[in-house]
């Protein structure tokens, strides 16, 4: 076990990471008072086959769009697709040669208090050095009269093993307090 990851996990969640089964909790980040610009998982062990991130989130401002980058790559090495519905219509979107993928849309500061969006995303074959990396997500938020349901996918055009993941709010605002993301490894 990497002592760096062990210490990191301990600081975040209070537990030392120790692999045990086919579906392991690796680390959890919960945003404290004052919010957080980013949620990052670093020193991700390469011993799993897939990763899953499960979380609830709220944007402290008005964007609501959550972006994701791998291994601190901020260059235009990503692409994404989405099908989503806002309660009125169903839509599709795509973007290529971009600087991030977008797992989903969550609650904003205009949503009812205590309402958070949710994301369940998978990063497949994340440690494989022969493949580009694919993310797929199920995400959404409902606000009793507004909201959005998303199916999304993203591609990182790199064969590097993923060792870090950064989640952040599009437009530069913060994750609100109580936003929480948990990283799991799947063998």
């Amino acid at each position, binding site marked *: 076990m990497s002592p760096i990851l062990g210490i990191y996990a301990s600081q975040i969640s209070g537990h030392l990471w120790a692999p045990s089964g086919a579906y392991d*909790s690796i680390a*959890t980040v919960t945003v404290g008072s004052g919010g957080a610009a980013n949620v990052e998982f670093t020193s991700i062990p390469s011993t799993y086959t897939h990763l899953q991130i*499960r979380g609830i989130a709220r944007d402290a401002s008005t964007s609501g769009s959550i972006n994701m980058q791998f291994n601190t790559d901020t260059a235009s090495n990503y692409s994404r697709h989405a*099908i989503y519905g806002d*309660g009125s*219509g*169903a839509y599709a979107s795509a973007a290529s040669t971009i600087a991030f993928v977008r797992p989903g849309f969550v609650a904003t500061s205009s949503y009812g208090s205590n309402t958070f969006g949710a994301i369940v995303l998978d990063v497949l074959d994340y440690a494989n050095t022969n493949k580009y990396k694919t993310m797929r997500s*199920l995400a959404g938020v409902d606000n009793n009269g507004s909201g959005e349901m998303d199916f999304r996918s993203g591609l990182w055009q790199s064969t590097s093993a993923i060792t870090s993941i950064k989640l952040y709010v599009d437009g530069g605002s913060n994750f609100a307090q*109580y936003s929480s993301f948990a990283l799991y490894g799947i063998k």
Partner: protein
Amino acid sequence: MPNTFEAIATQTVSGSSTTNITFSSIPSTYTDLVLVANATASTSGQGMNLYFNGDAGSNYSSTRLYGNGSTATSDRQTSGTFINFALGSFNNGQLVVANIMNYSNTTTNKTVLLRQNTASAFVGALVGLWRSTSAISTIEIIISGGNYVAGSTFSLYGIAAA
């Protein structure tokens, strides 16, 4: 380290009189719950209604996205008395996988992300909101008419984050 993804309980319908599936005394020790249902209704035109903690007030809402083979649609339920657990009539069977996120925290309202598949008619997903900060201790899935056909299964799992 305890198991991260654990089976809590499974209910398999027998006979022809079951209309209500209840998971009660749900332990608060997990982070998320996953509810997997593979169910069939005895008659057409019925739905499955999802309730938390016995709340039958107008405290539920949802946004849905689904396709029926020719059209993609998004619709919404506001101030409802339950969350629509089934997508359309399910007398030919329905598979639902529902993620009940951060179910035991007492700070946030409860959000459900679920995928619904009625093989003969629809595929879709729904995000549901229960406007309550209470920890979820009971889940009910009640059929709107008729009964669950014998062999219908409902399984509840807990996922524990570090």
